[in-house]
């Protein structure tokens, strides 16, 4: 039975699902005591939604526009710093910028607005630097895009990776210390109070990315991905559309950078390196290049694995197994092996290039019981077929062996290699091919 719902039902279902999820996260963060396993789930959702956003933004470039860009961590870094710098409370500047005489900027937007219009000002004061972070990153991306987007495939990857590293070095530059605090940690800036905040912002941003992908511009991006020459011949200005995609992707990377800053409560430029870009790339590949749903699922799986399920790999004991191999950093080894396995055997990722749809999900759900019931039967049939195939193969092998032995014997005895056929009108009899 295939399920087909009309658009209104689908919208209602989606709204209910989203509302339930948000309520769960909100209450979960509020009432679950710290340290319990369930709290871990909330943390995973919190960080996962930030990674989901940056992965979706990377997928917009890699999966939908066909631009192999590796600059995402650099753009996140700019976003994180842009947010943090403007929200450190005035009283904390002396401590945070202790090596730079309290820094240049001595105020916090959140404090100023909160003083003027109360609690609403607090949120507006958080929202403006976050949006500003995105816009600033977008401007930087626009400038970087002018030279870089003329490059193709691997060259683009190398150039964007290079720019990301330059950005990181730039933010650690001591001369910029009064603004960026040099290579020291930025802290004490305003963060959100409940895990529902990053989920909400991430969700809205991903929805916007999806709307873009399903618009006429999204179609143009996909055309560029599929065939640049044909896209150009259809009147699509390659540079303009690549620039649009690059700038928008970077904007959302900036937003996710700001969210990550809030999640971590302290930031430093060092971790925004190539390893981080590869983590994001890993999420995109696991989820499926060209599927936003895949990126979201991949982000939650990755975060759950690295923060929760595979934690034990770094601390010496995992699933009851102890080994001297399991020491800090072993998790990374496992991830590296995982990405190799995925690329080798499951290059499509979890979702391929499909997106979530209620129709498909409900159809799958409805068929699940009967599929599960039929599973042992199918499994047996499969294994029987395999057995049969093996038997056929073995028989063929034995026959070949026999034929070979026969040939060897003939060769040794000096007889013909071919069996002479009976004489007829159509068949030419082979002469004896002696040695």
């Amino acid at each position, binding site marked *: 039975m295939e399920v087909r719902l009309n658009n209104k039902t689908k919208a209602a279902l989606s709204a209910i699902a989203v509302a339930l999820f948000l309520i769960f996260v909100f209450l979960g963060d509020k009432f679950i005591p710290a340290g319990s396993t369930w709290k871990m789930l909330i943390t995973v959702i919190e960080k996962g939604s930030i990674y989901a956003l940056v992965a979706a933004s990377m997928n917009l470039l890699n999966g939908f526009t066909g631009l192999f860009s590796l600059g995402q961590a650099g753009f996140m870094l700019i976003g994180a710093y842009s947010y943090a710098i403007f929200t450190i409370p005035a009283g904390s500047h002396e401590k945070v910028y202790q090596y730079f005489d309290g820094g240049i900027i001595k105020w916090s937007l959140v404090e100023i607005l909160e003083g003027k219009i109360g609690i609403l000002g607090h949120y507006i004061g958080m929202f403006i630097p976050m949006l500003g972070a995105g816009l600033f990153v977008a401007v930087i991306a626009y400038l970087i895009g002018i030279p870089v987007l003329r490059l193709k495939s691997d060259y683009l990857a190398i150039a964007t990776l290079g720019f990301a590293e330059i950005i990181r070095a730039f933010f650690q530059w001591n001369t910029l210390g009064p603004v960026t605090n040099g290579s020291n940690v930025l802290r004490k800036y305003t963060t959100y109070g409940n895990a529902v905040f990053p989920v909400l912002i991430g969700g809205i941003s991903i929805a916007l990315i999806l709307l*873009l992908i399903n*618009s006429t511009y999204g179609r143009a991006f996909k*055309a560029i991905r*599929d065939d640049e*020459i044909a896209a150009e*011949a*259809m*009147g*699509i*200005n390659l540079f303009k559309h690549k620039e649009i995609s690059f700038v928008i992707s970077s904007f959302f990377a900036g937003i996710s950078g700001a969210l990550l800053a809030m999640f971590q409560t302290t930031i430093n430029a060092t971790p925004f390196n190539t390893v981080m870009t590869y983590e994001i790339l890993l999420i995109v590949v696991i989820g499926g290049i060209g599927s936003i749903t895949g990126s979201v699922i991949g982000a939650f799986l990755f975060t759950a694995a690295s923060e929760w399920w595979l934690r034990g790999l770094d601390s010496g004991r995992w699933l009851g197994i102890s080994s001297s191999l399991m020491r800090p950093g072993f998790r990374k080894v496992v991830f590296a092996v995982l990405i190799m396995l995925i690329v080798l055997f499951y290059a499509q990722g979890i979702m391929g290039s499909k997106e979530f749809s209620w129709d498909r999900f409900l159809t799958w759900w409805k068929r699940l019981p009967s599929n599960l019931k039929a599973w042992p039967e199918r499994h047996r049939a499969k294994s029987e077929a395999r057995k049969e195939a093996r038997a056929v193969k073995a028989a063929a092998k034995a026959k070949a062996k026999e034929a070979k032995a026969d040939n060897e014997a003939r060769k040794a005895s000096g007889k013909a290699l071919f069996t002479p056929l009976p004489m007829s009108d159509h068949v030419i009899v082979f002469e004896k091919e002696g040695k």
Partner: protein
Amino acid sequence: MMDNREVVLRLSDITMQFGGVVAVDNLNLEVHKNEIVGLIGPNGAGKTTAFNCITGVYEPTNGAVEINGKVVIENHPQGKMKDAYKGRNNGKYTKAITMLPDKVTKLGVARTFQNIRLFKGMSVLENVMVAMHMNQTESVFGATFRSKKARMEEKAMKEEALELLKKVDLYENRDDLATSLPYGKQRHLEIARALATHPSILLLDEPAAGMNPQESDDLMRFIGRIRDEFDLSILMIEHHMQVIMGICEHIYVLNYGGQIADGTPAEIQANPAVIEAYLGGDE
């Protein structure tokens, strides 16, 4: 024979030299309004290169391309090419006007490709709708936030695309993946996609390649039909003589980049130089 219809596409002394190889040598060609012109020649004669010069994929080394009476591409040997240039008419052209392929398409010149280049990840309908993207005016923000204008344009685009698919007999396949279509239909789709850009001039690069006589017969009728229905002037490269001789009003013959003959199908069939190029002369 004089043709008093206006000239919509004119190539003047187009020469394309790659390093020391002259791929197209002094090509002069005219396409009149509503005319179907053939461009033929043995493999490697420079036919597709000529197409690429018209559509802006390559910059010609020398010569000019005029579309609807306006010079849109012009070049003369510059830089290193100044000394290396082997073609004729050096010094006749002085300007350097280049144009990117998307701009040429906006001027009303659409093309298809020798080796079909459909957008693989998209449905038949989407393939056609992509080609209409350049005519929409909404900004990326409006399109993302589904402004009223964006919704209207999207709706109009879809309706027009479906209409177009009906005309080329692909309506039934509208939701199929473009690459899942049989070969002949893929060719039709490529032409439909080109038509979606609202061209006045259509360049077809070997539309009948790989088709059997029956299919190429259908294609011939199809090309004639869209010429009338969409008010097109058509320039086509083709190897199937049956197709070329059947529908072209004027034929240009290239060999080794050079233009060896032009004329009506009957003239071309009787031209000794053409026969020699195709069959080899007595040596």
